[in-house]
C-alpha cells in the first residue's frame, strides 16, 4: 500500500479542471442547501442525481460528496444567526451560537464554526487515509450489544448537557424516548402510535421536530416580547474570532474532531450523535461549564468540528465495504451503481482513483468552503440588521418551504408547527429541548439494539457484559452516572447542578 503514491494519484484526480468544477458546484449547492432550513443534502443530491448520469463516476461522487459536507457548513449558519438548525447535526450549534449572535458576536461564532470545520475536515482526511482499513474492521465489531451499550453511554452523556435541573432534563428525555417510539417497530413489524396515519409509519421526522422546537419557537417567543432592535444591532464586535476565542476553542476543536471521527464511522451513528457527544464532553471538561448555553465559543467549536469530521468518516464504510452508514451514503451507493461501479470491498483495489480522488477532493472542498464562507460572514451579519417585521416572516416562510421540501409532504410542515408551539411552551417552562432531541435520536436505536441482542442471547442480559466493547461502554456509562454523586466531585464542578430548581 504505497500511501504517498496513492495520495498523489488522488490529488492528481482531484485537481483535474472538470473535477475542480464539480467540487466547487457541489460545495456551493451544499452550502445553499444547508443554509435553507429543512431541505437537506439528501433532497439536493436526489434532485441532482439524474444530472450526474452524464459525467464520469469520479466527478459525480466528488460533486455529491461536496453537497453533503457543504451542507454541514451551511447548516451552522442558520443555527447561529436565527436559531434554526438547517441540519439535524447543527442543533447543538444553536445553543451557544445563537446566544453569541444575540450578544453581537455572530461574526466570531460563524468564523470559529468555519475554521473548526476546516481543521476537523483536514485532520479527518488524514485519519481516513492512515487508518481506514483497521478502523473499518473495528466498526464491524459493533453488533447489536455494542450499539446498545454505546447508546446507553450516549444517553448518560445527557447528564452533562443540561444547565439546569436534572429532573427537568430527564422529563424531556423521557418525552423524547416516547416520541421515538412512534412508527413501525423494526423487531415486531407493528405500527406504534401511528393512528392510521400513513406518514407516521416512519416515525415523526427529526428535521421538522428540531426546526419547530428551535426555530419556530424562537420566532414565537420573540414576537411575544417586544424586543428592541438593540439586541441584534449591538455593535458587531469584529467579524473574526479573536486570539482569546482561538485559545479557548482550539482544544474543543481537537476533541470534537476526535469524537466525530470515531462516531461517524459507525453505521447509524454519525454527525448528529457526534455533535451532541462533543458538546457534552466539552462542557464536562471546561473550567467554566456554567457559560455553556449562554454563548461559550467552545460550544460552537466542538459540535461543528465533530459533525464535519463525522461527515467524512461516514464515507469509509461506503468506500471500503460498500455498506452505507446513513441515508446520504445510501444515495451515493445508488449513484455508484448507476455509473456501473459496484461499491464493495473490491472497489478500492479495482478503482483506486475513485477512492483517493474523492478523499483528495474532500480536502480541496474543505478549503473551498472555508474560502467561500469567511467573506460571507460579513454579509450574514448584515442580514441580522433587517428589521424584525421583515426578518421573522421571512424566517417562517423559509421554514415552511423547507419543512415541505424534506419529503414533499405537508404533514411535515404540520409537525414543525406543532413542535414550534410545544417548543414555545417548553421555553416558557424552562424545559430544555436538547435532552429531548438526544433521546429522540438515540431511543429507537437503543431499543432495537436491545431487542436484537436479546434475540441473539435468547433473553440473557449477560451478553452485554461478556463482550468486551459492550462491557467497557456500560462500565463507563455507570461511572459517569455515579461520578456526579460523589461529594468531592460536586465541590469541584459548581456549574453542574443535580437537583437545584431553575430560578427563572
Amino acid at each position, binding site marked *: 500500500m504505497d500511501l504517498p503514491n496513492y495520495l498523489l494519484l488522488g490529488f492528481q484526480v482531484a485537481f483535474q479542471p472538470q473535477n475542480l468544477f464539480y467540487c466547487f458546484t457541489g460545495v456551493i449547492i451544499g452550502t445553499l442547501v444547508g443554509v435553507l432550513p429543512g431541505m437537506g443534502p439528501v433532497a439536493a443530491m436526489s434532485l441532482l442525481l439524474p444530472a450526474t448520469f452524464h459525467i464520469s463516476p469520479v466527478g459525480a461522487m466528488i460533486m455529491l460528496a461536496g453537497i453533503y459536507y457543504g451542507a454541514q457548513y451551511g447548516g451552522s449558519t442558520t443555527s447561529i444567526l436565527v436559531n434554526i438548525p438547517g441540519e439535524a447535526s447543527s442543533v447543538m450549534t444553536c445553543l451557544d451560537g445563537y446566544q453569541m449572535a444575540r450578544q453581537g458576536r455572530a461574526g466570531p461564532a460563524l468564523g470559529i464554526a468555519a475554521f473548526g470545520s476546516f481543521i476537523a475536515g483536514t485532520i479527518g482526511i488524514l485519519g481516513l487515509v492512515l487508518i481506514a482499513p483497521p478502523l473499518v474492521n473495528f466498526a464491524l465489531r459493533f453488533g447489536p450489544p455494542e450499539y446498545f451499550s454505546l447508546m446507553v453511554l450516549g444517553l448518560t452523556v445527557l447528564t452533562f448537557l443540561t444547565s439546569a435541573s436534572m429532573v427537568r432534563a430527564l422529563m424531556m428525555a423521557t418525552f423524547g424516548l416516547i416520541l421515538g417510539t412512534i412508527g413501525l417497530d423494526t423487531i415486531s*413489524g407493528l405500527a406504534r402510535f401511528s393512528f392510521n396515519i400513513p406518514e407516521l409509519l416512519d416515525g415523526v421526522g427529526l428535521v421538522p421536530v428540531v426546526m419547530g422546537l428551535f426555530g419556530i419557537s424562537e420566532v414565537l417567543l420573540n414576537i411575544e416580547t417586544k424586543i428592541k432592535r438593540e439586541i441584534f444591532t449591538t455593535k458587531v464586535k469584529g467579524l473574526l474570532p479573536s486570539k482569546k476565542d482561538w485559545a479557548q476553542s482550539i482544544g474543543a476543536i481537537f476533541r470534537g474532531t476526535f469524537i466525530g471521527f470515531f462516531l461517524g464511522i459507525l453505521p447509524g451513528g454519525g454527525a448528529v450523535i457526534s455533535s451532541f457527544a462533543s458538546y457534552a464532553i466539552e462542557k464536562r471538561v471546561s473550567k467554566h461549564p456554567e457559560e455553556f448555553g449562554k454563548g461559550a465559543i467552545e460550544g460552537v467549536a466542538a459540535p461543528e468540528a465533530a459533525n464535519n469530521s463525522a461527515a467524512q468518516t461516514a464515507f469509509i464504510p461506503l468506500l471500503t465495504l460498500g455498506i452505507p452508514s446513513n441515508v446520504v451514503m445510501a444515495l451515493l451507493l445508488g*449513484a455508484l*451503481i448507476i455509473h456501473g461501479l459496484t461499491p464493495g470491498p473490491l472497489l478500492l483495489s479495482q478503482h483506486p482513483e475513485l477512492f483517493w480522488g474523492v478523499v483528495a477532493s474532500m480536502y480541496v472542498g474543505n478549503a473551498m468552503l472555508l474560502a467561500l464562507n469567511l467573506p460571507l460572514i460579513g454579509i450574514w451579519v448584515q442580514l441580522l440588521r433587517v428589521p424584525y417585521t421583515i426578518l421573522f416572516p421571512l424566517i417562517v416562510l423559509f421554514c415552511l418551504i423547507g419543512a415541505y421540501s424534506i419529503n414533499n409532504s405537508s404533514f411535515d410542515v404540520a409537525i414543525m408547527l406543532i413542535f414550534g408551539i410545544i417548543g414555545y411552551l417548553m421555553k416558557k417552562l424552562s424545559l430544555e429541548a436538547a435532552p429531548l432531541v438526544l433521546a429522540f435520536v438515540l431511543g429507537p436505536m437503543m431499543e432495537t439494539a436491545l431487542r436484537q441482542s436479546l434475540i*441473539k442471547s435468547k433473553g440473557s442480559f449477560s451478553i452485554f457484559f461478556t463482550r468486551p466493547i459492550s462491557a467497557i461502554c456500560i462500565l463507563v456509562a455507570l461511572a459517569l452516572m455515579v461520578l456526579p454523586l460523589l461529594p468531592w466531585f460536586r465541590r469541584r464542578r459548581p456549574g453542574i447542578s443535580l437537583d437545584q430548581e431553575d430560578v427563572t
Partner: protein
Amino acid sequence: MKTCKKGMIGLGLLVSLLFPLGFGALAADFPTKPITFVIPYPAGGSTDVTGRVLVDAAKKDLSQPIISENKSGGGGTVGPALVLAKPPDGYTVGVSSGAVTIAWHMGKLNFNPLTDPTYIIRYTAYVFGMVVRADAPWKTIQEFVKYAKENPEKVTYGTPGVGTNPHLAVEELGILTGIKLTHMPFKGGAECNAALLGGHIDAVSDSTSWGPMVDAGKFKLLVAYGDQRMARYSKVPTLRESGYNMSYSSPMMIIGPKGMSQPVVKKLHDVLKKAMETPEFLEILKKYDMVPVYLNPEDCTQAVAKESEQIKRVVEKLGLLKK
C-alpha cells in the same frame, strides 16, 4: 318548422356520432400536464433507480414530462396509499410491489390491493437469495438446512425487516423443511450485511444488496429464491433445484388510483411497455441482476390475486394474519 326539427334531429345524430370520438380525443389529448410518478422507497435504491430510468425512457413518447417523487415509508406502502388518494385522471401513478400485498394481509394497509388500484403494467421483479459468510461451514443450502435441523433455533438470520419478502421466504422454507431458525430483523439491507460481516448473525436473506460482498469473496450465495437462476451467479441453484418446492420474488408494478379510464390506462401501458424495451432500461436492470417481467393490466391484476393467496398462507402460519 319541419325543416328545423329535421335539422335538430340531424344535428343531434351528428353530435351523438361524434360523442365516442370525444373519449378517444380525451385519450389523445392525455397528457396535457406533467405526470407525477411516486416511488415508494428512498432515492438511490434499486426501486428508485430502475423506476426513474423507466419513466425517463417513456418520456420520449409523451408530450409531457414525468416527474419522479420519492415518498418512502411503511415498507413501501405509503407511496401507493398516497397514489390511491389522488383523482383517477392518470396524472398520478406510482410503483407498487409485493410488499403491499404482504402489508395488507398483516392488517397494515388502508386499502385492498386486489380491488382498489388500477394496475397499468408489471415491469420487473426483485430477486432474492440467501448468503452466508465465505468462511462458514456450509457450502450448499442442503448442508445449511441439515445443520439447522440438528440445531433448532441456534442459527440466526437477518432480513431487511419483519414481513418483508425475504423474511416470508425463509419462514416458508422453515414450514417446508421443518427447521427452526432465529430471525433477527434489521432496518434495511445495509444493516444486515454489516452484521453478517461482523459475525453477529449467521446468514442474510435479502435482495441483491449482498452482490458486491459475494463478488469480493466475503459472502457465499447459497441459493436463489426465484424460478430461474440469476444470470450473474449461474452456478448457484434455485430453491426448486435444491429440492424445496417453492419460489419467491416480489413484482414491481405501476398502479394508478381506482377508476381510471380505459383509454388512459392503455396509453400509459403502451408507452411504458415501449420503455421497457429500451437499452437504457435493460442496462440498468442488469446492474441490479434483475430481468424484465412483463404483464399487461388484466394479467397483472390476476397475478396479484394469485400471489396474494401464497402470501396469505405464509403470513397465516407466521401468526401475523390480521384479525
